[in-house]
């Protein structure tokens, strides 16, 4: 735990709980909760420091099942064009990454970053016995479970439980109003943050005129997909703990947002705005190791092309803006961004100009510290399982690599067992 984090907690202890300011707003707090937190904080002095120098992992969830084959396109394979006569991307317009695969033409900025060695693709990522339900498959990805086993907590929640006990609750920040199931932990950790200007407990009755309606993701029957929230605490103590975590973080976030002006040039999409806030928090030196961003609308069962192109275009714009901003801040080398989706889609298009639920898919990686070049192994289009791709790399190997090589913690305790570590960082 860094000095600044400890300072925050002591500051909190002094001014809020003992001073009674919070006791008025948050009458639920009892010594026990705080004592437990404080004991955790004392015990975590041995933790490695975060704050201004630690590695940061940004997870971008693409909800709905992104069509991997129209994102990273095996343009040289005739089987691809045969399977997708209506929605296939013609080879000549593909942005080539190799003599086999290339990016969707809506992603020129990512293609350029690939050329510089600052972005790459992991191909063929999936898991054995794939499940084609959005919800079950998303749960498998978020909890890093085997497909025939239900894990109670999220993989990042287990990382928090194992490696971040007693640290600042903002060690994980989810952009949005809900926590992803990946953050579910035996002790809740992490905060959900949507509008930093309103992220504080008000004194008395402040007028809430700015409580404007929010337009959630459009497109497909899966807009947002956060999953379940689990905890070992009962409902009452869970709520009490969340309120305390919010209080611990809110002064600091208000301070950061006030003192660190917006940098970069982000698109005015919701995704762009989310990345802008991530950037602001990174610039402000939040002790956050994990940022979690979600982007929905990928369930393209019908009339896919226009929708999918638009989504990929928004993704390209937002990621490029974030990469440029991180470079300008001097933080690009300590930031690693990873995208995932609950599954890819079926190889063959359906009769509605769309694609149904499938299996393995590519993931994007972005950051100053990645190893250039394509990762993973592209699945064969000639050797399918009931019309679906066979995965070549287990997604938990990707997680294991992030834990071991990026966050520098043992992965087996988080993932339940050892998975081979890959070479992308």
């Amino acid at each position, binding site marked *: 735990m860094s000095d600044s984090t400890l300072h925050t907690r002591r500051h909190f202890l002094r001014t809020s709980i003992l001073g009674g300011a919070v006791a008025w707003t948050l009458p639920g707090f009892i010594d026990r909760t705080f004592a437990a937190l404080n004991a955790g904080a004392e015990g975590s002095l041995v933790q490695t420091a975060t704050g201004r120098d630690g590695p940061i992992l940004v997870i971008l969830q693409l909800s709905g099942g992104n069509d991997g084959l129209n994102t990273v396109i095996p343009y040289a394979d005739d089987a691809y064009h045969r399977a997708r006569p209506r929605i296939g991307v013609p080879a000549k317009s593909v942005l080539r990454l190799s003599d086999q695969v290339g990016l969707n033409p809506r992603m020129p900025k990512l293609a350029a970053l690939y050329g510089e060695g600052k972005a790459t693709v992991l191909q063929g990522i999936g898991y054995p016995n794939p499940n084609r339900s959005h919800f079950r498959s998303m749960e498998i990805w978020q909890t890093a479970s085997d497909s025939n086993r239900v894990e109670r907590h999220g993989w990042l929640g287990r990382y928090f439980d194992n490696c971040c006990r007693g640290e600042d609750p903002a060690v994980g920040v989810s952009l949005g*109003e809900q926590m992803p199931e990946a953050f579910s932990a035996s002790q809740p950790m992490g905060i959900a943050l949507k509008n930093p200007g309103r992220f504080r407990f008000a004194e008395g009755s402040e007028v809430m005129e700015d409580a404007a309606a929010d337009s959630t993701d459009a497109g497909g029957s899966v807009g947002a997909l956060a999953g379940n929230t689990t905890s070992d605490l009962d409902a009452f103590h869970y709520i009490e703990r969340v309120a305390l975590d919010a209080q611990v973080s809110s002064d600091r976030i208000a301070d950061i947002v006030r003192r660190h002006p917006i940098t970069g040039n982000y698109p005015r999409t919701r995704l762009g705005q989310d990345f802008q806030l991530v950037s602001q928090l990174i610039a402000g030196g939040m002790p956050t190791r994990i940022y979690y961003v979600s982007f929905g609308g990928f369930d393209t069962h019908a009339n896919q092309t226009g929708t999918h192109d638009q989504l990929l275009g928004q993704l390209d714009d937002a990621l490029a803006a974030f990469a440029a901003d991180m470079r300008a801040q001097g933080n690009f080398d300590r930031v690693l961004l990873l995208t995932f989706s609950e599954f890819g889609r079926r190889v063959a298009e359906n009769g509605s100009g769309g694609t149904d639920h499938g299996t393995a898919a590519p993931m994007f990686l972005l950051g100053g510290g990645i190893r250039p070049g394509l990762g993973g192994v592209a699945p064969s289009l000639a050797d399918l399982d009931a019309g679906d791709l066979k995965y070549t790399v287990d997604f938990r190997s990707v997680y294991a690599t992030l834990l071991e090589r990026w966050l520098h913690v043992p992965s087996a305790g988080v993932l339940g067992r050892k998975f081979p570590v890959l070479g992308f960082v």
Partner: protein
Amino acid sequence: MLAPLAPDEWSLDHAAHLLGRAGFGGTPEQIRAFHALGLDAAVNQLLAARDNRPPAPDWTKEPGALKRQTMMEMRPAADPDAKKAAIRDAMREERERLVELRTWWLRRMRSGGQPLREKMTLFWHGHFATSVTKVKSAWAMWRQNETLRENALGNFGAMVRAMARDPAMIRWLDLQQSKVGAPNENFAREVMELFTLGVGHYTEADVKAGARAFTGHRVTPLGQEFVFARRAHDYGPKTFLGKTGNFDGDAVIDIILEQPQCARFIAGRIWEFFAYENPEPGQLDAAAYSLFRGGYELAPFLGELFRSRAFYSPRAMGTHIKSPVEWLVGMCIDLETSLPGQPLLDGVLGQLGQSLFQPPNVRGWEGGRAWISSSTLILRYNFAGFLVGSADPAARKLFARRFAAPVDVEKLAPPPLRAQPDAFAEALAFRLYGSERSRPRTAAAIAEAGRPINDPRARSIFQRLMSTPEYQLS
């Protein structure tokens, strides 16, 4: 059959619990009257209540469905600027209608004329979760809402058949494009995974066969009416859940309903919504058996649940995290005030993660702890303070003009009552928590507020008691 609560055990706490779960809560007077009926009559009253107020917005009378699509698809693009302007107008109108529709439904919940029917409609909206973001028609969403309301306490089989013909659902899960030779699997998968059986109780082959059976379920070109498109239907033989025949959509639904797993899944969903999470297997077996034996009739099933001992057990009482809609409507009932104005209502529920007619995905709202994050909890606590309001006349005026009627603390906490701390604590605990359980906290809040308890102090006590973990629970 579930073990029933003995009639002489029926307490005021139980009455508050039943009104909170089967409806949206009640004032102390309503809870007392409800309790006086006795358990059996109270449950019967919930099941029988019918009230059509307030009526739906006027524009629902004429089917103006899918106006925007219609304009885009059907008008010749003679004048691109005029077309753009027309589309913009149509989109604005759709947005306004959506907000009106949300307000209308929330008012029905608030008015309390048929609390259980509205609560069940909310349950079914989360179950057959359909979002306006893809359907793009407030009219179609209204119509689905009325279908859910009409069948809310009826027969589950009839409900599923109605949903397979519902124009909003047909758009939402891509039945419109499904046809013989090229079936779209979206509806067939979700009807089993989310609406009837649960994941793991069918095979991928059943999904494919089911998709073929539902081909031909379409809406008319303007999107208002269901139509069975014969030429799009696959009349061939299909093997579905172990049976083989030339099944159509209704036949597939009948086969699904024959599976005891369907009754188990629905009984479990209803149990978790009204009583508590992860019911004991024995309780769930008994509930599922009742539902199956009763031919999926919902009213007797709900009656059995609301009369059961399990429904009033410690696992159930005070353990449910209120959804944003339950919290907001319940708060207005507790404070005996009207709902806030449209923009605020819409904004707050959106930020708390429960925009009606716009669930996040086809599984609906996750519920439980997922409602509570640092972000949503801060908003809930702050909003409680805002709604109770301050005594400052300027703030009151602004509040009244823009948002809602001010909370009448003179009525909720009459000065003579405030002068008796014990009686005041008891009254507040009952009003806000529906129970004596939280009296110590209430007493502490009153003591800390200082004396005399003038208007600002009374308001601060209310805010404090609603900015607590307890108040998020029912």
